[in-house]
């Protein structure tokens, strides 16, 4: 049960129950919908830019505890960041949950997002954790829809050779 309690940590359960920035952003200038067609999760990410800075960000949608908490904490982490900073964070987060990045060894900006490191022990759930990040990324590059099926497998080289 240690892996399980690592996955469903109190912070994650709390964000699932009371997601932050969980609403429509009326004056958003970037909106993107994200789908995980395999499991039916869907969410919408709203971004309001101020030049190169993410002035505000929010989300709506339905999904599991992991995807909801990840989206909630994603909005908290990127608010006020530049687009470049958000993109770096996205890459680091993705690297962490797919096992490509050692968040304790390699330098990174993940901070409290490290709480999602346990997801990599659950390959079926990697896309749940990364959906909101992929959707944010799509919004920032101006795509209105993204689905996890287009993103290639969220699996590690270790899993491929297994």
């Amino acid at each position, binding site marked *: *049960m240690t*892996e*399980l309690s690592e*996955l*469903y940590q109190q912070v994650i*359960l709390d964000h699932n*129950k009371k997601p932050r920035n969980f609403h429509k952003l009326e004056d958003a200038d970037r909106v993107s919908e994200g789908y995980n067609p*395999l*499991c*039916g*999760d869907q969410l919408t990410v709203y971004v309001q830019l101020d030049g190169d800075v993410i002035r505000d960000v929010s989300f709506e949608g*339905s*999904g*599991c*505890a*992991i995807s*909801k908490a990840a989206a909630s904490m994603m909005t908290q982490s990127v608010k006020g960041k530049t687009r470049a900073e958000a993109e770096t964070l996205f890459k680091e987060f993705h690297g962490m949950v797919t096992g490509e990045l050692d968040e304790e060894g390699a330098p990174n900006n993940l901070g409290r997002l490290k709480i999602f490191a346990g997801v990599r022990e*659950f390959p*079926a*759930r990697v896309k*749940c954790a990364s959906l909101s990040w992929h959707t944010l990324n799509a919004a920032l590059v101006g795509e209105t829809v993204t689905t996890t099926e287009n993103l290639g497998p969220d699996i590690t080289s270790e899993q491929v050779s297994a």
Partner: protein
Amino acid sequence: MIATEKMINEPAPATWDVARIREEFPVLGQTVNGRPLVYLDNAASSQVPRVVIERGSRYLQEEHSNIHRGVHYLSQRATTAYEGAREKVRRFINAREAKECIFVRGCTEGINLVMHGYGRKFVGAGDEIVISAMEHHANIVPWQMLCEEKGARLRVIPMNDAGELLLDEYEALLNERTKLVAVMHVSNALGTINPIKEIAARAHKQGIPVLVDGAQGAPHLRIDVQDLDCDFYCISGHKMFAPTGSGVVYGKAEWLEQMNPFLGGGDMIRTVTFEKTTYAGLPNKFEAGTPAIASQIGLGAAIDFLNGIDREAAHAYEQELLAYATEKLSAIEGVRLIGTAREKTGVLAFVIDEVHPHDVGTILDQEGIAIRAGHHCAQPVMKRFNVPATARASFAFYNTKEEADALVGAVQKVIEVFS
């Protein structure tokens, strides 16, 4: 080993010997995450008994060759085994002739074959196809593709809150423009057993053919296509203890003869010139290219296996398990069952207040329990019951009451984690 010769009309034993049947399924003996595997995902794919594994293995070791081609020894052995499997299928579903049993990769391919062969020939602009509100995507999407291509219209039989089709509303949908009724025998998402005989009779009164998606029917019910009087019946081997890649679409010969071929290629022709090709007779007309020979021979072995067990006792046992698990699970506060039809197979779909089914699936997996969480390729069903997804435990005759108890215990654990 269960004697495959055992006749099905032998007197049923007083009880179903589940311990003995479990020994026939090697995969069930393992541990997952330190717990004995509890396999409750049978509606997605059932496990394979030793006799089927051994039959496939024997084919690959001793008999493999291409079928219908060679005059040599191995090709004849492979052909005999493959056509033998077809005859086993014929008896299993009581088709009139073996040539009415077309081998396909599974139900999805079977339905697509009928869509191309029957639909594209006989359905035109303004015509209607009737499906039901509980269909799997495999019995929705091909018909939508056809409707889009032909300018035809899809009509949907509604269901009640228990997940039962409304037969009067069904009959009211039928008219002179209806070219096909396509319904599932048993719902993968709800467990509902549909009254196919009645549905077919009402369609036939108006001369409308009926296709049955039998993916969830064949593993649990005795199938007699002549008694059901359906025009097409589709089967997926991997849901009835055979390997993936095996399956059958049964069609009445009078329809199959009139239909266009599905895939073009080798083995489905009589003569080919650059000017004109003539097609082979049934069943070859619908079996272009080299098929999944080992898998279909495995399907034949799975049918032998099913003939060797007491299927009435197995069915009664599955019903007992379903009743037991239903009572225990529905007694838990915060759990709601989706699919409560009077006539059901061992499918137990449920939702837990404030907990997403994927989280349920992950926590159960940690307990060694395999269930399906998601929309079950039936998104309209999820919408009908106003849920994004469900968790689904689906039973087979090798599951036990102890496994049902493990499921119930794990569900309670889920509620604790999220409380």
